[in-house]
């Protein structure tokens, strides 16, 4: 029963060791799938009709739904950050579906989720400085100067808790299914794990992805207002 992230290759780049782990390889597979899907949709959008139907209809529905969701949460003026979070949403959703196929989801590794939440943190600080320039820094000293360390710790806790939420949910799903597969005989491993996958991997993973995106939007809104 192996719950660790396997190391597949070790390559040497300019004298430094780079470990190609299972997470990186699975991320490449997901990237390939999503790029092929995007290219297929782009090719099918060449004959653009004003009244959409088919693939164009689906694509427009998805993008418009997410755009309206971003406008509702962040506000009209700042909803230009929506495409980045649409990418995060689609990528993390594909990660959840990925673990149904027996491979380890990349978001079950803290590195992936910490990278995404660090990106959210950088976007939050950038939007704060861009739209509120000096007053964003002043808001750390806001009620009283003595509260500055507490405000600082609260800001640093945001990306950490954001990353741990998604990582903990995906890791617990992976552990549960690994335990199930390693402790049961072969004839109960055929149809029944599909229910466990559907609940613990897909449903909870999708919910946590939605939570990740909506909490990111709320952090950005808190930084610009």
């Amino acid at each position: 029963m192996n719950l660790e992230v396997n190391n597949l290759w070790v390559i040497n780049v300019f004298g430094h060791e780079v470990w190609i782990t299972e997470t990186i390889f699975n991320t490449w597979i997901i990237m390939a799938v999503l790029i092929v899907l995007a290219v297929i949709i782009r090719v099918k959008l060449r004959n653009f009709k004003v009244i959409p139907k088919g693939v164009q209809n689906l694509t427009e529905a998805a993008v418009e739904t997410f755009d309206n969701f971003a406008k509702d949460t962040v506000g009209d003026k700042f909803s230009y950050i929506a495409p980045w979070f649409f990418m995060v949403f689609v990528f993390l959703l594909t990660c959840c579906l990925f673990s149904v196929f027996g491979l380890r989801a990349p978001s079950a590794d803290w590195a992936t989720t910490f990278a995404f939440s660090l990106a959210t943190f950088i976007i939050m600080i950038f939007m704060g400085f861009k739209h509120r320039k000096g007053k964003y820094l002043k808001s750390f000293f806001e009620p009283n100067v003595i509260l500055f360390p507490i405000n600082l710790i609260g800001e640093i806790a945001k990306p950490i808790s954001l990353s741990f939420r998604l990582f903990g949910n995906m890791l617990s799903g992976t552990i549960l299914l690994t335990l199930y597969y390693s402790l049961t005989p072969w004839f109960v491993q055929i149809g029944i794990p599909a229910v466990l996958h559907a609940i613990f991997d897909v449903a909870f993973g999708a919910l946590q992805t939605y939570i990740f995106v909506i909490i990111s939007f709320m952090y950005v809104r808190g930084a610009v207002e």
Partner: protein
Amino acid sequence: MQDPLAFVIAIAHIAAALALLNGVTTTFGQAKICSQAIESMARQPEASDSIRSTMFVGMAMGETSGIYGLLIAIVMLFANPLVNTMVSYLG
């Protein structure tokens, strides 16, 4: 106490079990959030979508401290730094 490594590993397992005791208050917190959401949906069914979204965000916030406990338990069992230190110290 004859075998210090076995003692450290045993204490690590007990610590992992104790770390999950925060699940008690997590359950009560999430139940209160959900019960208030259901009650307000019954009072005003047309705001039901908005209440449902807010309820999910509130449940995720409450779930976070439960996950911190699970994280400590997993670190205790599988990546315990003190056990690794003892193993490298004993040679």
